[in-house]
């Protein structure tokens, strides 16, 4: 016999309960504030930046923070603050594209594997296993070596290493939902398979996937920075945080401000997305929620 909770939060007004919990979750609040700041910066970067990010000024190289340049200048006399702002835009563009691609591929294939099983599952999940067997970075470097450098390459490379995780998560979520009686009820009502996937399964797996995606943004930005740091990512003169940290490291002893402030921007962004993801997980997970 199913135990129906005797005392539960009142069920009407689920939305407002969510809002209430959200405000009480410190992780979710701090995370969403940080993420909002980064998003606003990324969107309005060209207007917020005090200088042209490409403008070279050989008379003002390695200026320290303060004065005309808020965060100083780099080896070519370019304004670090402006370049960090534009770099946010680049990072988030890459992360957004990678998310869109990997969610589409990962969720679709994961749902097919979990719901239909059989040979489709075998093919999809063995592919996933093979990709998982490679260290992520090495795989991305391999792709870059084949396709050449550039923004598109970064997006393709990161999508390739990122979708198997989404597919695996989706499949396991679908497998457990498959046990719910409403799926059997839908089959018994003569519902077509694709409709079951779209109407019954997708909405019920959305929350954990959103959580995974928001934590994932941090990792993708980090991976993009790593590729740029290694020089196989987005190319000059487009500023990227990875590339700027690499340039800054060379002058770390004499002029630490470039590496320092860029790393700070990277850290704030990643922490923001991770906090938001953790907060969402706490809020959306029914096991944690009802306590």
């Amino acid at each position, binding site marked *: *016999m199913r135990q*129906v909770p*005797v*005392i539960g*939060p*009142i069920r009407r007004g689920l939305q407002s*309960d969510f809002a*209430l*919990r959200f405000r009480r979750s410190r992780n979710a609040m701090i995370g969403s504030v940080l993420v909002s700041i980064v998003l606003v910066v990324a969107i309005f970067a060209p207007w917020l930046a005090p200088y042209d990010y490409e403008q070279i000024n050989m008379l003002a190289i390695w200026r320290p923070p303060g004065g005309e340049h808020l965060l100083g200048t780099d080896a070519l006399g370019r304004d670090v603050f402006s370049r960090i702002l534009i770099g946010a835009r680049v990072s988030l563009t890459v992360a957004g594209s990678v998310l869109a691609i990997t969610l589409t591929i990962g969720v679709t294939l994961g749902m097919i594997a979990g719901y239909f099983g059989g040979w489709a599952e075998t093919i999809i999940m063995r592919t996933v296993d093979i990709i998982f067997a490679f260290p992520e970075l090495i795989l991305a470097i391999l792709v870059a070596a084949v396709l050449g450098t550039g923004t598109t390459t970064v997006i393709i490379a990161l999508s390739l290493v990122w979708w198997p995780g989404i597919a695996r998560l989706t499949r396991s979520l679908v497998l457990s939902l498959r046990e719910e009686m409403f799926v059997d009820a839908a089959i018994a009502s003569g519902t077509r398979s694709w409709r079951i996937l779209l109407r019954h399964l997708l909405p019920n797996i959305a929350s954990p996937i959103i959580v995974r995606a928001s934590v994932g943004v941090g990792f993708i930005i980090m991976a993009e920075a790593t590729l740029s740091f290694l020089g196989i990512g987005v190319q000059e003169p487009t500023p990227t945080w990875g590339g700027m940290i690499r340039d800054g490291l060379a002058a770390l002893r004499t002029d630490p401000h470039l590496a320092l402030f860029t790393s700070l921007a990277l850290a704030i962004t990643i922490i923001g997305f991770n906090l938001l993801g953790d907060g969402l997980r706490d809020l959306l997970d029914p096991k944690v929620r009802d306590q």
Partner: protein
Amino acid sequence: MSVREPLLQVDGLTVEFATLRHRLKVLEDVSLTVHPGEIVGLVGESGSGKSVTAMSVMGLLPDIAGVASGSIGFDGTELTGLSRKAMREMRGRDMAMIFQEPMTSLNPVHTVSFQIGEVLVEHFGASPAQAHAKAVELMAAVGIPDAARRALDYPHQLSGGMRQRVMIAMAMACQPKLLLADEPTTALDVTIQAQILDLMRSLRDQFNMAILMITHDLGVIAQMAERVVVMYAGQVVEEGTAAQIFDRPAHPYTRLLIRSIPSARHKSARLDAIPGSTPSAHAFPQGCRFHPRCPEAVDRCRTETQALHGLPEGRSSRCWRSLEALQDTVAAS
């Protein structure tokens, strides 16, 4: 009625739960007594507060809950103000509890003999060898065949009925004066249920242990209990001997509940269903809490809060018309 000292005396117990937005009074003015060696049935549907009552007695209320008023007297000790440590010593030694789902109440990584013996090590300082020997003895006593071998099994190796027997063996380890059984047979098949009920009855006879049997199943109550307490919406609505409750129920809820059960002994043409659904603690009705579902409700029931009051022959009811109703049944018979 005997004048013995009651073993358990719950008096005017009110328990509140604090949720995100509300303070919910899940129990209000609950009173019941259990005498030594007596089997008392506590019956109610989901949300009636029967399990919360048991948890309050055991001192196992969740953190968000608190006793707002009332008292719980057990064997001369007041339990409501007791420290956690004193309560822990009391549990297992003087009172024990068994639950509906024996799998989740047993630790999967220890053998059953270890878990039964643990209580003895804890409360009596028994050595591991003594504890094991006693565990095997207890398992045999609760009807587990081949107990010496079974004692080394892990919970997952046992069937549901056997696990419940292990739970009972654990509860019996210190020969408690009171056993609280919360839906002990609800998860079991009917033939296994019959075995477990027989076992509980025979243990009571042997050790003069009182049992508070908490269940939604009036059939189990009818077969086991000497006295019955009926709960509805966080309150006791009726209390009396099994004969009084089943033959001449005084409260309309009890009357309707008994009539709504399909019998396996005779074919019933149509069941007397109770309309509506059980209220939740968020919205207990004003006046008599049963009035929205009661076919006999009049204006007074809707407005006037009802108190549990005594009736002839030592029984009590929360319906102000019970006396009238009982006189009618006497006149009719």
